[in-house]
């Protein structure tokens, strides 16, 4: 009891206006902010990969495999935040065994499984199959067997088989694009379908989520490419960077337009909730929404990339500006998720008051666990890079790299 009082007392001072008693404490914490952030990165990275396979954007070939492995690494970690938030991870399989078919949340199990098993893993498998066979022949000991198992003991690397791999990859990617849309659109749907919450309830929500996902995914792959390449003592492919930055720029324009459309729509509609929402945006969310999400995470990176495009920028400066922009975009998208998840719970359903969110440092819902969950994908990615090197030079191909 004493612990609860100590936790709630500082919150009382933050409350303004009238709120219902069960609204003092937020039910969805930082971990629920991380979940849509991570799935967004997965969907975004995959859609970037699809640009190479389906839309033949050859300039992006150097980051094709990086994107796929990034999507996989983040995909594996995404449910951890939900498991940690819900508690009782030992019961989580039940949602898959006896799913409630009318529950949007239960559907996540299927969307996740479909995307992981039918799309992502298969695409990676087809792309790496030939390399896995060759690595298995070259390596010795455990590694040899690991590669053999990963290739499912496949042996055929005839031209016909490789052509089939390529075709299969294309088909899977075509299937994968709507799947990636569903994966992240679903997350937006979960929020957008809460009709009791005017901050969330919007049909635009899945689309806004999706485009912000594409933005964050592209920015993440750009960052990883820019960090990993110098670490490997290799030269960055400027054409690839330019193309990545261009796609980032276009996706941000669409994302920005959608968010502004949503904003104007709300103001024009002026439903009864508009007063409390304006109070929320002008008060508690002023820093995280207007300063971080809008100015730091959207307008500044847009201006930087536009500047690079308009002026003849030296290569080094260009790289620096791309790097800064992608970093700012990551911060911006993280706060986009923060503003949706936390912001949507800060106002009372009475529309007459605001509460506050007090983040814990320790504990399962705390900051440290969240940081660990955010860092874990990078560790997995490191292992994946070691086991499945995505670099062109070690990538045994029949055709030379276009870059």
């Amino acid at each position: 009891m004493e612990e609860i009082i100590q936790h709630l007392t500082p919150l009382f001072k933050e409350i303004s206006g009238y709120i219902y008693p069960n609204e003092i404490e937020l039910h969805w914490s930082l971990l629920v902010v991380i979940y849509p952030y991570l799935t967004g990165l997965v969907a975004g990275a995959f859609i970037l990969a699809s640009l190479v396979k389906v839309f033949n954007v050859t300039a992006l070939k150097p980051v094709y495999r990086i994107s796929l492995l990034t999507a996989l690494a983040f995909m594996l970690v995404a449910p951890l935040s939900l498991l940690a938030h819900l508690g009782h991870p030992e019961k989580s399989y039940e949602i898959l065994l006896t799913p409630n078919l009318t529950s949007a949340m239960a559907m996540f199990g299927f969307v996740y499984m479909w995307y992981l098993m039918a799309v992502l893993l298969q695409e990676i498998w087809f792309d790496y199959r030939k390399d896995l066979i060759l690595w298995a022949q070259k390596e010795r000991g455990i590694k040899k067997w690991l590669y053999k198992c990963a290739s499912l003991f496949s042996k055929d690397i005839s031209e016909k088989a490789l052509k089939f791999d390529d075709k299969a990859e294309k088909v899977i990617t075509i299937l994968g694009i709507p799947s990636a849309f569903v994966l992240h659109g679903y997350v937006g749907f979960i929020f957008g379908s809460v009709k009791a919450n005017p901050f969330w309830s919007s049909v635009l929500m899945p689309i806004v989520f999706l485009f912000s996902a594409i933005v964050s995914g592209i920015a993440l792959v750009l960052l990883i490419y820019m960090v990993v390449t110098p670490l490997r003592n290799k030269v960055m492919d400027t054409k690839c960077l330019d193309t990545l930055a261009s796609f980032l720029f276009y996706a941000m324009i669409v994302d920005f337009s959608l968010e502004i459309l949503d904003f104007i729509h709300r103001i024009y509609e002026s439903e009864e909730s508009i007063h409390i929402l304006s109070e929320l945006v002008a008060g508690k969310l002023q820093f995280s929404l207007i300063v971080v999400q809008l100015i730091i995470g959207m307008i500044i990176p847009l201006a930087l990339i536009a500047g690079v495009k308009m002026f003849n920028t030296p290569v080094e400066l260009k790289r620096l500006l791309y790097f800064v922009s992608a970093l700012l975009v990551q911060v911006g998208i993280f706060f986009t998720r923060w503003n949706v998840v936390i912001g949507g719970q800060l106002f009372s359903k009475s529309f007459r008051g605001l509460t506050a969110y007090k983040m814990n440092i320790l504990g399962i819902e705390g900051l440290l666990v969240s940081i660990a969950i955010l860092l874990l994908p990078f560790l997995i990615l490191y292992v994946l890079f070691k086991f499945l090197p995505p670099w062109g030079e070690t990538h045994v191909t029949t055709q030379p790299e276009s870059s």
Partner: protein
Amino acid sequence: MKLPWKKLPEQIRRLAVVSLFLVVLPFIVRSILVPSDFGKYGHYRASAVDEIIAMEIKYAGHQVCYDCHDEEVESKQAGVHKNVSCEICHGPAAAHSEDDEIELIAPRDRDSCPLCHEYLSSRPTGFPQIVSDSHEPMKACISCHDPHNPKSEKSTECEACHTEIANTKSLSKHVNIACKECHETPDAHKTQPRMFLPGKPVNREFCGRCHAETAPSDKDIPRIEMETHEEAYVCWQCHYPHLPEAE
């Protein structure tokens, strides 16, 4: 002759085996882990109903109370509390309905009623609400309101005109002393208040009925030695009787 299976590309054959395993596996796991009676009545385990039935019943339901407590039930049925179940105030009564010896709670303090009647802006307009800190803070709710048939009628007695005094007295330990105990009041005072004034105690013995050392009153009441305590004055010349605690 080649089997149709052999005609498939090698990759597909290998993936098909893995996929088949991954598709069949959940069905095997499901058949082992999902209880056989799951889904018999709905999206839950049917035997859970029996487990719930087997749990000890603590509440009897208000119909049971009617069998013995006719008077209270009739009174409650006539008033605004008719939809408030007996067990809301008196607690779970299943054991009591089986055995009279097990007594139920009967809240007589000021803690219970404000659970519903304390002022909250989210309560419906017109629902009787009080601010318990200022609403007769020294009195138990049941000393004015019958919980089985509560009424909040406007008073036609002294406090109707002497509200300020009544409010002051409500904060005092003298709250339960009726006005007429000290003020002898002719009936005509109500119609011609200035012509027929109420009386007030004129001697020290009046207060001494409770506060003298030898008075047969409650032991918690403060006592004085009548013979030596400021014998030249009437008590109310120094102590304000409506709030004697005041300095």
